[in-house]
């Protein structure tokens, strides 16, 4: 990168100027806000919309917000959804086909993909890592997903490091947070919020991460007062990350985790999990890396016009694995096994990285609170001891 990574410090007014500059440059800005008792991503024009003082209390199958009246705007961990719905839409019209008679050529109208500049403010490091994973699947394969490509172009990614992890987080285990990794290069700005409850409002340490980010920072410098980072600030930041890291309660041992997952295919744990699992698909919908989709064709009554819609699908649905007239994975045990094995094991085979970024959403938003971090040790133990020979599935 040609630009020096020199951080500057701005206050909350400066953060508003950043938002203003982004909007002036033609971006639609999105950021976290309190909507319907959760922190959701919505279009944002003012820093007053940010969740001031709000923090999230998360546990297995449980999420509550409370306001501790702190000065921070980013004093929460992660909301119910990452940025996936904006990049990989839940439902998308892809094309329409017209054919009046069986012998007519099919006329295809391809739906235009979205256009326009956007800026995402408040991307968590684990969420940024999830975008890296989606990029690999949808942009770096032999074929490119055209809708995702459009959504990813003209996009400014502004990371806000995580200083208040939730109890469901395990980013330190997956090496995806709480601070953005130096190995990730897809973002434009990196921000760390500094909150000192004794001396007024929050301050933001802003570091450029791309040429565009540096340019924005230059404009910001001309429009608002910025100060350089002091040694004390640097110490405060480091202390903040150490606090964040040490507050992370959940852990996954990733040593040879791929092999553990592959060796666990016959483990009886899957059947036990199926007793609890609702196969409702919530974990896949909230997972920031789950990318699976299906296509549905809607016809008019005459069958002349067909609208092709793509929508999120889940490997927990019976239809997902259908071949011919029967699903390959009919038992819930096999569906759960597929999901978790893909996340932690076969994703490496397919895409050379982990499918899990440790955000903990699948734990929080599972209606019955299934916690993968609590299940993996049993898989590891069984795999190391030569495996559990009881069948994984069958009578479900």
């Amino acid at each position, binding site marked *: 990168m040609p630009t020096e990574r020199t951080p500057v410090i701005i206050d909350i007014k400066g953060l508003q100027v950043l938002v203003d500059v982004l909007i002036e440059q033609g971006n639609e800005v999105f950021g976290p806000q309190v909507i319907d008792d959760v922190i959701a991503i919505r279009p944002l024009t003012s820093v007053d919309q940010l969740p001031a003082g709000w923090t999230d209390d998360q546990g297995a199958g449980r999420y509550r917000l409370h306001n501790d009246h702190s000065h921070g705007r980013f004093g929460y961990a992660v909301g119910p959804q990452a940025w996936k719905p904006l990049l990989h839409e839940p439902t998308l019209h*892809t*094309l*329409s*086909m017209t*054919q009046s008679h*069986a*012998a*007519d*050529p*099919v*006329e*295809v*109208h*391809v*739906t*235009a993909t979205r256009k326009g500049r956007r800026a995402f403010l408040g991307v968590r490091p684990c969420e940024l890592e999830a975008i890296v994973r989606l990029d690999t*699947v949808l942009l770096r*394969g*032999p*074929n490119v*997903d*055209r809708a995702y490509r459009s959504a990813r172009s003209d996009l400014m990614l502004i990371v806000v490091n995580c200083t208040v992890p939730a109890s469901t987080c395990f980013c330190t285990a997956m090496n995806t947070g709480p601070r953005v990794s130096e190995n990730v290069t897809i973002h434009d700005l990196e921000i760390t919020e500094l909150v000192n409850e004794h001396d007024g409002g929050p301050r933001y340490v802003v570091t450029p991460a791309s040429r565009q980010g540096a340019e924005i920072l230059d404009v910001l410098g001309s429009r608002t007062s910025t100060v350089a980072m002091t040694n004390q600030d640097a110490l405060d930041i480091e202390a903040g990350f150490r606090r964040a890291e040490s507050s992370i309660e959940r852990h996954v041992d990733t040593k040879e985790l791929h092999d553990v997952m*592959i060796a666990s*295919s*016959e483990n009886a744990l899957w059947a036990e999990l199926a007793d609890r699992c609702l196969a409702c698909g919530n974990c896949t919908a909230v997972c920031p890396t789950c*990318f*699976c*989709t*299906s*296509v549905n*064709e809607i*016809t008019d009554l005459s*069958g002349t016009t*067909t609208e092709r819609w793509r929508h999120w*699908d889940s*490997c927990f649905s019976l239809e*997902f*694995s*259908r*071949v*011919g*007239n029967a699903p*390959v*994975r*009919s*038992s819930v*045990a*096999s569906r759960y096994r*597929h999901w978790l*094995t*893909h996340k932690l*094991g*076969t994703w*490496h*085979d*397919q895409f050379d990285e982990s499918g899990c970024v440790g955000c903990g959403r699948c734990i929080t938003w599972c209606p019955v609170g299934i916690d993968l971090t609590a299940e993996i040790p049993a898989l590891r133990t069984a795999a190391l001891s030569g495996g559990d020979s009881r*069948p*994984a*599935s*069958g009578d479900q």
Partner: protein
Amino acid sequence: MTVTMRPARAPDIPISYGVLERSDETHDVATLRTYPVAGRLPSFAPGQFSMIGIAGVGEVPISISSPADDDTAHSYTIRAIGAVTQRLVRAGVGDVVTVRGPFGRPWDMASAEGGDVAFIAGGIGIAPLRAAIEEVVRDRQRYGRIIVLVGATTPDNVVFRPWLESLRQTGVDVRLTVDRPGPDASSWFGNVGLVTELIVDAVGSVSRVVQDDNPGDEATRDRLSAFLCGPDAMMMATVVELEQLGVDPDHIQLTLERNMQCAIGTCGHCQLGGLLICRDGPVVTATQLGDALTTSEL
């Protein structure tokens, strides 16, 4: 907002092919010969598949069964199982179907050159092998013996029987077997039993002869290449049989079917363990496959 586009090469956009000819292979299997009506698919290699469909009904993955050197028209042999295939099998001459493709990794024919070749099919599995067999027969000086083993449930369900008979006339070792000869058993002169039961006699003898010629030579293990297509259980049993005969698993190729939907590796449906079948297959080696088919509901 929509814009009209007519790109022939975008892999996610269907183009129109017309049914030039249709032939009934069995009571529920038909072959459609299709020609380009608007746009044209890129050229393909044996083993690759297209997503063929009826607008408004859906798409299914079907291997191209016509020879790869003929790009004027493509043949698809289809068994009526679900909504789409039932409609395709009933399609009339002149009807227009949608196609996208070709997709996936083809048969690796080059690796088989210089040795004996066995094609082992179960049921309609002979269709994805047909283009490969045609290629081997055409270039037969590059190969040793050519063996074609086909299993079906009943004599009526043997697909491409006239073609198989014509192959036999050209010196290919064609052997057929059925599970049940049917009420009119006297008219069935082939074998009765599983296709795996033909392997030792047909393939095993070849393997032994070659090994006897070059005792102790590791290379002889590579002299037989096998190409498999059929139900998962049939292919697994065949792999076991071939490996017991000493055939190198790298030289056993199988074509797999899972729920291919996008066919371009982005929808996630066709996973089989670490494999994305539309991207890493449909043709894989027994080595790549590992125990993926022996793990239930994988």
